[in-house]
């Protein structure tokens, strides 16, 4: 399984021939530029290439199988769990040149695009046609569709519209052994054979290299309205979410902040918040203007009935923007408390959020840490942020213990280690907390069948090897 041979001179030459000399580099400067992603850890690859077609990628993978060097797919390098890191060196293969939107089909409401297209660029293009691509990870202005699909990214709109997985209809994938696989169908209904599209989506670049995607689109909502509400108790916020849903309204956004997060952003807001603010909800409803107005009124009365001590609706686009500043200013505000943020995107059934928050508060007390929670209340995906000073070794160690406490808590609540960021190397050590032996064994067998020489993105998720990942530099 272990890829032993690194890139020798002969293989470097062959790689150069495959992609062309202008599209590859092994200069130290370029290797340092592809040594990181948004996990902010460092592993130097041996070479970086920017191929121009699936055929070139296929040739690279065939060579990798012959010569047994690791190949690591990379989109924009904005993943948060290290999925695009060359932890054991080898060849980083980017989708930089696969950046074309190929065909927007208005009538069938689909789009074919290449893997390197930036999510936000795709959204802007389809919206010109009155269409809508809902998946909206926080990185959407700079992350690629290929990366979003490989990590099965979500976002605030998931509560109503689902995640990337729900929009991928068909894929062109280069398999680890070099064959080019076409999964799925252009027909909305297709049950012919195994659903290999879904197998590939979320496989974190370990089962295949996604080069093209057929994506499902929906009509662009006519209007969006936003409101902000604050509660003196966390449970009230959860009850509000449940009441909203049971009154047959599905908000397009239901962002949640706990007391610690509210404290962080208080000063950035134009609005005076009540002193007693344990939970904040940012709620958006989209659709036809008349129905949106009705739904907003219903939600406001639910909030008041449940016991909100502040309800503020945005009447204009500007006011909507100013409500969002609460959410957007959170990241910089948090970084002022401690320079390092360990962000765990755990997910629980949404009615378990109060128990999760209480449990996290307990962990913070026991481990003597600052933990700030916010996230997507509608789908139970909460971002638990442990704030640490990387210079303080004891605090770092306590944080690592706290992460394990957190995962055990989440699994005991019927939840999941990661809602949208993936496992990569960041969460790999904790995988067995959630997945049993049978699950891991089946995954291993699938990986072995598709990638017998373990050359595609090795040492990630269940293949995690601390003796390899400990070789990072800082």
């Amino acid at each position: 399984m272990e890829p032993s041979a690194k890139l020798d001179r002969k293989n470097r030459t062959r790689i150069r021939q495959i992609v062309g000399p202008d599209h590859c580099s092994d200069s130290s400067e370029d290797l340092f530029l592809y040594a990181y992603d948004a996990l902010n850890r460092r592993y130097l690859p041996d070479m970086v290439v920017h191929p121009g077609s699936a055929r070139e990628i296929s040739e690279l993978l065939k060579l990798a199988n012959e010569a047994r060097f690791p190949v690591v797919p990379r989109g924009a390098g904005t993943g948060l769990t290290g999925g695009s890191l060359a932890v054991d060196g080898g060849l980083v293969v980017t989708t930089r040149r696969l950046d074309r939107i190929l065909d927007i089909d208005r009538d069938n409401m689909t789009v074919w695009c290449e893997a390197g297209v930036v999510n936000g660029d795709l959204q802007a293009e389809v919206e010109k046609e009155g269409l809508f691509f809902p998946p909206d990870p926080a990185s959407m202005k700079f992350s690629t569709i290929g990366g979003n699909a490989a990590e099965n990214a979500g976002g605030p709109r998931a509560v109503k519209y689902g995640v990337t997985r729900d929009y991928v209809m068909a894929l062109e994938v280069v398999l680890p052994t070099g064959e080019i696989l076409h999964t799925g169908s252009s027909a909305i209904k297709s049950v012919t054979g195994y659903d290999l599209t879904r197998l590939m989506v979320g496989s974190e670049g370990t089962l295949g290299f996604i080069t093209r995607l057929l994506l499902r689109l929906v009509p662009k909502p006519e209007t969006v309205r936003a409101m902000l509400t604050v509660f003196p108790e966390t449970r009230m916020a959860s009850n509000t979410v449940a009441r909203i849903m049971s009154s047959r309204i599905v908000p397009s956004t239901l962002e949640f902040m706990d007391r610690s997060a509210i404290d962080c952003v208080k000063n950035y807001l134009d609005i005076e918040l009540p002193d007693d603010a344990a939970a904040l909800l940012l709620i958006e409803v989209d659709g036809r203007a008349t129905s949106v107005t009705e739904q907003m009124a219903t939600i406001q009365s639910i909030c008041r009935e449940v016991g909100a001590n502040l309800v503020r609706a945005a009447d204009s686009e500007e006011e909507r923007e100013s409500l969002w500043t609460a959410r957007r200013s959170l990241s910089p505000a948090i970084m002022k408390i401690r320079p390092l943020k360990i962000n765990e995107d755990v997910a629980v059934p949404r009615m378990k959020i109060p128990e999760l928050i209480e449990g996290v508060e307990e962990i913070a007390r026991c481990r003597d840490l600052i933990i700030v929670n916010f996230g997507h209340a509608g789908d139970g995906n909460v971002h638990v942020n442990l704030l640490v000073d990387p210079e303080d070794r004891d605090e770092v160690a306590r944080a690592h213990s706290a992460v394990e406490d957190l995962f055990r808590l989440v699994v005991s609540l019927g939840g999941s280690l990661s809602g949208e960021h993936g496992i990569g190397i960041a969460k790999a050590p904790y995988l067995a907390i959630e997945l049993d032996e049978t699950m891991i064994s089946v995954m291993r067998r699938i990986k072995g069948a598709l990638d017998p020489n373990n050359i595609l993105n090795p040492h990630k998720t269940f293949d995690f090897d601390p003796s390899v990942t400990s070789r990072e530099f800082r």
Partner: protein
Amino acid sequence: MPKSKDHRLPTNISSKCVKCGTCHSVCPVFDAVPTESHTARGKMALIEAVAQGRLEESERYRDYLEACLLCGACQEACPNEVPTLAAMLEARESLAGRMGLKTGKGMILNHLLATARGFRLAMRTGRAVQGLMFRRIPESSGLRRRFPLPLIPEDRTIPGVARDFFTDLYTGTVRTGSGPRVGIFAGCMTNYFYPETGADMVDLLGMLGATVVVPEGQVCCGMPALAGGARDTVRDLAMQNLEAFEEYDLDAIVTGCASCGGNLKDNFRALLAEAGASEPRIEAFLSKVMDINEYLARMGLPSRTGEGADEEAGREPLTVTYHHPCHLGRLQGVKEEPVRLIQALPGVRYVPMEEADRCCGMGGSFSIENYDISKRINDRKVDRILETGAQAVVTSCPACILHIRDGLRRRGRADVEVHHVAELITRRMEEEEVESGKEKGESGRGDAETRGRGEEVSCEGERGG
């Protein structure tokens, strides 16, 4: 050249970057050519690797660091508030200290800019020989090179060296009024390439009743040298400027150059302190520095220009859009003032531009070393300008003016006028006087049109904007 012993590498700054990638979405260079070396996070990673001793300060490293406009868009968007501009300047300084400056560039930065006399001499030489090297382009008053020259691509239009430099035409106290005493910091581009902008500022301040002073000893602000990493040179320049402006008792020091203003406000405090100036002297100098737009807005100019006078006069207004220079809008936060000034002008209709605060692609030496990328960035700016349908685009930085004129010409749209705010205001105010003069049966014309719009200067002023 002397190699500085203490190369300060901004590890504390670069390590603040968490590599999230937000800078990808705002960087004009990355937008034109999306490679990781063009992003702020990439540059922070390289700086960090050098600081840790893992990477040599190589030629390639230098090329990567220099492929940056210093427009500040990444710094503005960064969720972690990483001061990328400071990191870039410090890294370039370390690079210059260790490797020396590039030949040519080093000579220009260290010898020509370093003394007023040296630079003036170079400009005089340029003026004398530009006829031999460039042909004049009739419709643009710009120059194209006649035969291959280093640094200047064949398709680039640059202004000629002015027949008369601003600081030759205007020296010492040039207007005497009953109002505040205002000093003008000319800046090299205004001085040598666009002296008419300086003249317009003098007239405008004079019209407002100010006593206008152009201190004799003023020199380059040093931004090109600072951007090139030659901090030692800039310290001397900062001190010479401090001394020049101390000669006069001034209420305000005004500049019409966004990059000079940004440099004075952001970097001079530290530079002067390093040069040994005392805190009160520094404070007395820098507390008076402001952009011409800030000064005019502070003096209440919009109300004086007679808002809405056009409709009454029943004439067709000039449609004008505004481009925010990075070093004025983003770095100095002066965004509202120029727009308010334009909106209030009689005979002018303001049309907003999409992406008005997006860099024009000039970036000083960036546009010399990376002209192809610079053109692509500029194309997007020109698209936005043309979309407005405006007859004129106005801005507040001579470097942006140079680059936008070049871009419009390349696209065959030299008919769209490009002006400095001071020029537009002066022209409109003078025409107003003429208009009101006509009504009284007098004849005459403001001298804005007839005043020597010099033969311009043809050496690239290097600046960060």
